């Protein structure tokens, strides 16, 4: 027992020390080959120089890795001849990590983050400009004008309601009315869903003179929207509460709505505001300082391409941005997409201010 522990400790330490002096090349291979890592680390360490071609490992930070997606993804990548190392990390944590690692970047490709995060990274000079070979076949409005990040899939954020609920509002802004008090559930503003919906409402009231760039009216609206809501407690069954009518409405992401409908054999009402729904666009980007730029571009061409995105959708219910893929997705996704349209949002403005807006809401509006 003691020996085993000592041996493990020694191995860890050796790796740790090697890592300390490490340069960018020090990225061990995928977890597929458990025991051999130590050797590989030191090998790449001693050689010190880049090996050529596609036998290099691409390190990907993504919030699209949970629920078996990471395993599926690395298998697919391996079939296509790419050696990938997937780091499963939430969107805002991924941003924090990339920013903090600026002087010693570990990550090559960012995948799945939304515009808010990419705009922050862009402003912090953490991204590399590039251009995939599939820009023609995606919605041009979703592409970053400066050419840093490109869309792969979208997640509309919706307000769903109990099938028999009669007062379904026509827009998020209706919810501030007295009759909706405590009738709708919101997710925490720390997470992507809650934050984006909130930003999509607040940013409608842009006013350069106003506090944090928002007019007086906008803040009234924000206060009502947050203050009127029921906050979803951790572990609470928000969907179940919609179905049994405890809280007849819920803020939810589209793919989740479809799975819940299937699992619980239920059909929700879906609010379709005239301005459209906030579409979270999941994009691809290359991190500044990568020494495998060309390989990354080639990899992103493959990952964001029609074929791969269709497979991804068929397996995990995403809504692909590629036209051709979108035409071939499953029926329930196509039906849903048909009734939705993306709200026109100023992402740069949102990215710049959203943290301050959330801060204000957390401090002043939440109960």
């Amino acid at each position, binding site marked *: 027992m003691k020996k085993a522990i000592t041996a493990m400790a020694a191995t860890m330490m050796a790796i740790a020390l090697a890592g*300390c002096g490490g340069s960018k090349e020090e990225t061990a291979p995928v977890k597929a080959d*458990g025991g051999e890592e130590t050797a590989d680390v030191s090998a790449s360490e001693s050689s010190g120089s880049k090996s050529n071609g596609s036998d290099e490992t691409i390190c990907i930070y993504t919030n699209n890795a*949970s629920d078996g997606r990471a395993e599926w993804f690395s298998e697919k990548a391996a079939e296509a001849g790419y050696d990938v190392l997937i780091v499963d990390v939430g969107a805002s944590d991924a941003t*924090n990590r990339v920013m903090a690692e600026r002087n010693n*970047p570990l990550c090559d490709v960012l995948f799945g983050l939304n515009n808010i995060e990419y705009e922050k990274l862009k402003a912090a000079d953490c991204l590399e400009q590039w251009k995939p070979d599939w820009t023609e076949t995606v919605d041009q409005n979703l592409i970053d004008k400066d050419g840093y990040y490109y869309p792969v899939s979208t997640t509309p954020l919706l307000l769903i309601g109990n099938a028999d609920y009669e007062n379904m509002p026509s827009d998020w802004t209706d919810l501030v009315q007295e009759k909706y008090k405590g009738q709708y559930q919101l997710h*925490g503003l720390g997470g992507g869903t809650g934050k984006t919906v909130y930003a999509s409402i607040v940013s409608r009231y842009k006013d350069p003179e106003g506090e944090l760039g928002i007019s007086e009216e906008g803040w009234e609206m924000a206060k009502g929207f947050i203050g009127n809501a029921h906050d979803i407690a951790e*572990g609470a069954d928000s969907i179940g509460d919609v179905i049994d009518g405890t809280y007849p409405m819920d803020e939810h*992401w589209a793919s*989740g709505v479809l799975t819940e409908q299937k*699992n619980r054999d239920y059909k929700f009402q879906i609010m379709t505001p005239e301005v459209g729904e906030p579409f979270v666009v999941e994009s691809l980007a290359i991190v500044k300082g990568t020494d495998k730029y060309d390989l990354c571009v080639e990899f992103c061409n493959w990952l964001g391409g029609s074929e791969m995105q269709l497979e991804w959708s068929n397996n995990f219910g995403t809504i692909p941005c590629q036209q051709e893929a979108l035409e071939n997705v499953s029926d329930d996704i196509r039906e849903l997409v048909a009734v939705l349209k993306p709200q026109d949002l100023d992402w740069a403005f949102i990215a710049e201010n959203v943290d301050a807006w959330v801060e204000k809401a957390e401090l002043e509006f939440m109960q």
Partner: protein
Amino acid sequence: MNKLTAKFRESNISIPSLALKIFLIWFIVTFLIFPNVNLLLNVFIKDGQFSTDAITKVMKSTRAIKSLKNSFILAVASIVTVNISGILVVLFTEYFDIKGSKLLSLGFMTTLIYGGVVLVTGYKFVYGETGIVTTILCNLYPGMDRQWFVGFWAVLFIMTFSGTSNHMMFLTNAIRGLDYHTIEAARNMGASQMTILFKIVLPTMSPTIFAITILTFLAALSTMSGPLIVGGPDFQTINPMIKVFAGMQGSREIAALLAIILGLATSILLLIMQRVEKRGNYISVSKTKARLVKQKIENPIMNVAAHIVAYTMFVIYMLPIINVLVFSFTDGLTIKTGMITADSFTLENYAKLFRSATAYKPYLVSVVYSLLAATAVAVIGVAVARIVTKGKKKLDKLFEPAILIPWLLPSTMIALGLMMTYDVPRLLLGTKVLIATPVIMLLAYIIIKIPFSYRMIRAAFIGLDANMEEAAKVMGAKPFYTIRKVILPIIMPVVLSVVVLNFNSLLAEYDLSVFLYHPSFQPLGIVIKSATDETATVDAQAMSFVYTVVLMVISTIALWLGRYGGIKQIKNMIMKSKKGVNGR
């Protein structure tokens, strides 16, 4: 040269202890002070000016003030209730002669192997709308509100019975170290059982109780899951807010400010406790300690009452964990709705655990990291506790506040401090860059566990009999020999308890790991989070239950090895089998 050695001899400076001190000072400056100060400066200084915006913002926020108030109410209340239940639990299992105390102690130990969201959800299953207790109560009192288990009392109830881990570990050690002669002597002089308990037993244990009180206070101040899940709109606490703000670049100063307020409150309590501690004398005088004999409660009514209380508590402890075990075999929908039917049961959750061939790896990574960190922390804790309790110089006492720094900041910010400081070569580290190396997470694990470990080990040192050491010295033992052969064996139970508790709590660590882990070494916390991420999977909660059960198994093994003589038993078994072979 001769002069120098003479000087050394004169001033009683030993080279090894000087080297140790220099190392500790370097460690404290490099990992406890510099990164955190660097972060705070970064956070509070905006455009070259010290910003007090955070204070105004917090003062203006009714929610922040209310949450802070709630946190303090909960902390103060739980000091009382957790100490009562914790002391009772230890008395029932170690001091009084209660029938079936072995079984009871197994029940009371359950808090050592699970916690957080899963524990609170377990309680919610029992006392919530669809829970068994609620159903029974509703049958007794029709018309009762099924949603009764919400708000302050619900949170306090959960705290009271789930916060006794430290009592179970350290108070048990303390009571076992009690000298039975003192009790016998008191009895011979005609003291009643009550008098013995309150005048002899509890006072001797008070250094440990003080230390545990601080930990309880801190745990209640920074509790997350309890208020979030059963607090309801009226009883939310401050830590969820701190966490949200710590994760947002522009709001970190508020997180830091709020955390510092909590930290200062803890420091004040710490000071008060130390003052009280100084007044007392906790060392039992006898040189030949006798083993404690369990006390039968003489008063028959009291005896029956004690049994009833003990077994009621046992049921309270067991119901949630049984629920967790049962629900881990059901599908996600069952867990969400809390309704079990015949076809709710499935093994699919467990099957998912081992779907890929490399599924074992995160376990290995986390076990290695946690073990290394827990061991390193224990060594540092012993060294500093020794210096602080033995040192005569003013400077020696300064180790204490320095080593408690990590209590002042939430773990997210400690991670960020390390990342922001060691992303460039620094002289303190011999110009090594820490970021993006496997070692940074290990350091962070060590850092966050230092204050707790130090505080518990210090309590053990306070209760140490100085005469033993003197005797060793008189007989010519060198200082390090004395530590190894005399002091360490006495404090070893506490040190091992610290190691086990740290190991268990680091196994599924997430808050720090998410920022610091190296992609090649994914720790368990990350894997669990990704398997239990609600946005990705409907079975998220089922998976979090399954992982909890797996962690329970690992934690139980760790407990057994570290605390309950597991290593010895294994050794004996090996010896026996060897003997058996030789004999033939």
